[in-house]
């Protein structure tokens, strides 16, 4: 039976069919739906871990205990999990261990476009790269076989267009995988210098064996067409290449991107006239091939920036740019539409207040990063998960008390659990006095509503114990913890003023659930009474996408307004009224 499946959904199906029983992840676009879909299988234990490092450690534990385990993350998540990755490469596995990593070329929803293939090479772990949903499923199953056959973790790399594209997948039965015996093995699993030195020898042997395997496996295939042009490619770049060249080229489609099939590449290159290496982002395959002395053309023509497309390949390699009407004037006048905080978003009021107080704001990763954009523009920095807190501390240590009194760190609840806690401990321990604001919207928002240790529910929606952020703060030595309603602008402003003026570390928890949560109900859209409106445009300062300035008057787009009433709190003339009733 065939089903139309998202790449990520197909990965989940592959894990299920491979008999996986433990799956871990921290949500991150474009990887999130892998574990969301795995969680639907009753046979598999799944969890949202606090961060990717913990997620990988849990999966390693499960693997050594004898189960097949899968751990999923986005590209930057692998930075967080890099520590266990580099050493599990040495220990190897017991039950198969597969690490899913989803890169985001073009940065649709990311802070950088690092190429995870470099991690495979750096950590000496084999890496596969599927080119559609069917391969997502097949490669995950193959990855488990490789993992166990070569005693290694295996990384399967996706990119946004593979993870978030749907294509047809043939469904198969679940494999009956029997938990392997667990045996204590000091030399294999305790990586102290003496043992690790021996394991490193094993790693090098393994890489040699894997290189031999790469030349034979079906993961790497030659597809003959015209021999005038040879294309060495992998993943989504294969699909773009097919789109452009069709049968007018031969392809070496690489499914195992590390280690590369050196002999096969040489054989292929010897049969075709001109060889192009077509890959997205870094010249990863190209560099390896050129190192072997094989003549190929790659990044001389193709960009290392952003996503590849059939159009780019056509333009740069075939040199046939197509005329489009995008250069016409009307098109150039099209205003951009950057993402915005949703109508009703509880973060809006906080950023309104921070801007009003003219504070320096170290920011973090989540929906609330949108507070950096005009017209709120109330965020100064965004680097990585958890960075806001350490950076606020750094600002204080660099510029002193006066500057600190005009600085706050802003971080979401899930991001705080991910890696904000350690920053806060640093502030307490090293005599910092920063003010940290946790935007507690009771969910992981940007990635589409995943539970986290603060929400009280697991990935399978089972009730569980809940982290109490207030008690946690007290426990690590913060004595000033303030809890405010994120919709209460007056209280927010007063609290932020008081806490930034205080000569000790403090934590403000601004609470309000995400406006998109199903259980969040408002009283319905507002409209502006034009007789009362004095056109002072105070309401425009909250940057609500539902409030529109039409030049001669301001109005509410009723199709967008949810009725959170934040605008009523900045309006001095009571001009906002509920559609079909009073605002009071």
């Amino acid at each position, binding site marked *: 039976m*065939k089903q*139309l499946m*998202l790449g990520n959904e197909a990965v989940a199906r592959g894990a299920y069919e491979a008999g996986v029983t433990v799956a871990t992840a921290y949500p991150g*676009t*474009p990887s*999130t*739906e892998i574990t969301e879909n795995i969680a639907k299988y009753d046979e598999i234990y799944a969890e949202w871990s606090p961060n990717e490092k913990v997620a990988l450690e849990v999966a390693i534990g499960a693997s050594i205990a004898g189960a097949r385990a899968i751990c999923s993350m986005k590209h930057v998540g692998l930075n967080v999990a890099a520590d266990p990755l580099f050493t599990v490469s040495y220990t190897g596995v017991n039950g198969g261990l597969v690490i899913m990593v989803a890169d985001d070329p073009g940065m*649709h*929803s990311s802070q950088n476009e690092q190429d995870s293939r470099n991690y495979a090479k750096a950590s000496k772990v084999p890496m596969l790269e599927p080119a*559609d949903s069917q391969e997502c499923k097949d490669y995950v199953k193959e990855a488990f076989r490789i993992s166990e056959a070569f005693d290694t973790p295996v990384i399967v790399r996706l990119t946004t*267009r593979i993870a*978030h*594209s*749907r*294509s*047809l997948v043939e469904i198969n039965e679940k494999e009956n995988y029997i938990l392997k015996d667990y045996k204590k093995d000091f030399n294999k699993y305790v990586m102290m210098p003496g043992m690790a030195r021996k394991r490193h020898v094993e790693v090098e042997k393994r890489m040699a064996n894997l290189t031999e395997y790469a030349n034979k496996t079906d993961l790497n295939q030659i597809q003959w067409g015209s021999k005038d042009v040879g294309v060495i490619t992998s993943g*989504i770049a294969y*699909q*773009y290449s*097919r*789109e452009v060249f069709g049968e007018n080229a031969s392809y070496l489609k690489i499914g195992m991107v590390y280690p590369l099939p050196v002999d096969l590449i040489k054989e292929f290159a010897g049969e075709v006239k001109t060889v192009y290496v077509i890959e997205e982002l870094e010249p990863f395959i190209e560099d390896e091939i050129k190192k072997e002395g094989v003549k190929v053309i790659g990044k001389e023509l193709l960009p290392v920036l952003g996503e590849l*497309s*059939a*159009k780019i390949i056509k333009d740069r390699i075939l040199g046939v740019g*197509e005329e*489009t*009407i*995008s250069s016409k004037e*009307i*098109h150039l*006048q*099209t*205003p*951009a*539409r*950057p*993402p*915005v*905080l*949703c109508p009703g978003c509880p973060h809006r009021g906080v950023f309104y207040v921070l801007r009003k107080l003219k504070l320096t704001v170290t920011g973090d990763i989540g*929906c609330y990063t*949108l507070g950096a*954009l*005009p*017209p709120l523009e109330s965020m100064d920095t965004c680097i990585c998960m958890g960075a806001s807190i350490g950076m606020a501390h750094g600002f204080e240590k660099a510029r002193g008390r006066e500057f600190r009194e005009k600085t706050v760190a802003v971080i979401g609840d899930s991001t705080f659990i991910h890696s904000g806690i350690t920053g806060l401990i640093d502030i307490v321990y090293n005599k910092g006095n920063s003010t940290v604001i946790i935007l507690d919207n009771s969910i992981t928002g*940007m*990635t*589409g509503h995943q539970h986290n240790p603060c929400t009280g529910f697991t990935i399978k929606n089972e009730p569980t114990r809940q982290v109490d952020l207030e008690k946690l703060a007290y426990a690590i030595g913060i004595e000033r913890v303030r809890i405010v309603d994120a919709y209460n602008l007056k209280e927010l402003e007063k609290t932020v003023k008081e806490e930034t003026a205080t000569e000790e570390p403090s934590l403000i928890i601004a609470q309000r659930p995400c406006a998109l949560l199903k259980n969040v109900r408002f009283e319905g859209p507002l409209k502006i009474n034009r007789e009362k409106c004095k056109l002072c445009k105070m309401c*425009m300062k909250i*940057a609500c*996408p539902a*409030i*529109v*300035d039409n030049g001669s008057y301001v109005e509410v*787009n009723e*199709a*967008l307004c949810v009725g959170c009433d934040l605008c009523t709190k900045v309006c001095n003339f009571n001009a906002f009224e509920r559609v079909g009733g009073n605002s009071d």
Partner: protein
Amino acid sequence: MTNLSIMIVGVGGQGSLLASKMIGTVAMKKNFDVKVSEVHGMSQRGGSVVTYVKLGKKIASPLVEQNGADIIMSFEKLEALRWMDYLKKDGKLIINDQRIDPMPVITGKEKYPEGIIETLRGEYGDNVISIDALQIAKDLGNIRVVNMILIGILASKTSIEKEVWLEALREVLPAKLHDINEKAFEIGYSFAVI
């Protein structure tokens, strides 16, 4: 059938999933190969979003390129303008006549273009189909069927039988929503056959 390339564009949150799901189901019923490329993450928060759907004998790239779309279905006017150069010269452009101001317009930095539909008609003539689907949906008593009205128009512009679309509708939606959505679909389907 030659390959059919469709783009569904709009503002994050308007919901293009139903349309892509239905087209996917239709493709499977017809035994076509099909690929759908979606947007998740940050752009979904009120940004410009695009979904590509390609069906036919064998599909390689899931993306539609400039001058490559047979049909563009836009939930919002400005987004139709933004993506217009992806439409083939003889392609169909289905536009929901709704305006959502982007933040640069709200802050006064940029202007929402006037006369978008007329501009597009200037380029594509009668292949531009504009409809106030929001109003029709309100009249039907459920603003959520906006999508289905537009899907109805889209269906009428393909060579795939109407009955197949209706079957897909019934498969994709729960039974209690069949009646109102079939009504909405029919309005869209007959709208364009003027």
